[in-house]
């Protein structure tokens, strides 16, 4: 896993319906050193998903640059794994085939990529679901597979776009704890987009608060690991940090 720099990134696009140019992101710089977990929070429309889509390469940048592992990037690529809010699993592929898709694209042989996929499924406790279709899984399991699929491609950085927004509260907490566990085990570099402040604080080393397409402030999260909701829910430091971030978001 490698580092990611976002330098003076901006995005203006031509809105064909409005007939004019719109600025969505303006001069945003974010440094994510190797192995760090950064959350980006902000109200809807603040440009956080636009930034992620540019980093992922789904949208062309209007200005600035994105550097992964020392190289400027343009267009989507396997060095940046993406976890989508809508899980985006291929409905016509089994769980195993979904996870093996990335290695297959890299030209890994059938035997080997199945081994890789099974290995990663085991990491998330999903071995039993390998031969099922995404449609046959619960929402929480679908999201787990989405995370595993991105990880199995061994990306330099992992980009997560509100991945837990559409699962129930109980499952979300479990998924968050699992994600911190996996992060501690493998130390991937992660950018995590969310509008849920406690989630951002719980997961990250650093929270970037965004407002109207600009970085409002960055907050260091110096909470000890391993983290679990059981201990943090009563933790004073967690409460202070959360309310500080919340105030920033609400002022945004």
């Amino acid at each position, binding site marked *: 896993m490698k580092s990611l720099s976002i330098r003076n990134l901006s995005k203006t696009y031509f809105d064909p319906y409005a007939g004019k140019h719109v600025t969505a992101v303006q001069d945003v710089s974010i440094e994510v050193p190797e192995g760090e977990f950064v959350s980006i929070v902000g109200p809807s429309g603040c440009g956080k998903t636009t930034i992620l889509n540019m980093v992922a390469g789904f949208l*062309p940048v209007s200005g600035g640059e994105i550097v992964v592992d020392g190289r400027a990037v343009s267009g989507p690529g396997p060095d940046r794994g993406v976890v989508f809010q809508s899980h985006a699993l291929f409905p016509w592929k089994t769980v195993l085939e979904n996870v093996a898709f990335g290695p297959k694209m890299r030209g890994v042989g059938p035997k080997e990529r199945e081994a890789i996929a099974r290995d990663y499924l085991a990491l998330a406790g999903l071995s039993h679901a390998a031969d099922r279709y995404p449609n046959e899984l619960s929402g929480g399991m679908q999201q787990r597979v989405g995370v595993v699929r991105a990880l199995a491609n061994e990306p330099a950085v992992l980009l997560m776009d509100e991945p837990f927004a559409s699962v129930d509260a109980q499952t979300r907490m479990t998924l968050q704890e699992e994600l911190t566990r996996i992060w501690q085990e493998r130390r991937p570099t992660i950018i995590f987009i969310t509008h849920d402040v406690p989630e951002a604080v719980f997961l990250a080393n650093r929270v970037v608060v965004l407002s109207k397409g600009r970085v409002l402030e960055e907050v260091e999260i110096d909470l000890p690991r391993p983290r679990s909701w059981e201990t943090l829910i009563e933790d004073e430091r967690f409460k202070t940090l959360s309310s500080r971030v919340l105030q920033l978001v609400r002022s945004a």
Partner: protein
Amino acid sequence: MSAALSVNPFLRLWSGYLRLVARRPALGQILPFVPLVALWAGVVEAGLFPRAFFPGPVDVVRSFVDLTWKGILPAYLEDSVVRLAVGAAAGILTGIPLGLLVGLNATAHRALWPILLFFQAIGDIAWLPLLIIWFGFGLETMTFVIVYTVLFPIVLNTVLGVRSIPLDMHRAAQSLGAPKWRIVAEVVIPGALPNIITGLRNGLGYGWRALIAAEMIVGTSGVGFMMFDARRAGSVVEILLGMIILGLLWYAVDALILAPLERATGRRWGLVAQ
């Protein structure tokens, strides 16, 4: 892509088109035909094919005006539309009750479902020879074919709709004190309505084609007859005119009858037909 703020002229044009279409959706359905008709006219003017074999839009419009002036076209159009309307009405009036019966009654379902599937599979047009023997070349034959064609999609979809209503809804109505016939009226029919309308759409789609075929084979009037008569005379213009009229007529049926019905039921209630 560059960050330059200048926009190329094609993009401007395109954005203008999108805005126009967003404001007047009807134009989005019409404007795409402009280049197509232009292309058609261009090919004809270029003289790639003999004009009698492949006439242009101007010829078709001229023949439209001519046939309308003589009163032939309006009369044929009326014949076709009346036949379709009568057939559709008869199909609906028998199809929905039959569908409700087959959908609600297990015994009726077991006994009639295979028979319905089989008769649907035979297909309307295959009845024509037998019908000609029975009724001759006339109105009865055509009416039978259209009713037959419209009937089956409506029955089959009504059954589907009735059987897709959740059991809990029956139970809810029962526990709120509704007697059996009220459950049918207040729960079953509205619940099956989106499917019934889908059936009506399919039925009219098939019935429409059957009508054209019947008019070609047994007809003495109607748009299908006009096209086939033109074919015998080798008049491509009138064939093309007939095709365009058939297309437009279907648009009218869709826009004036089917689409409003669908909007009023399925989409409004968040039920998705089909």
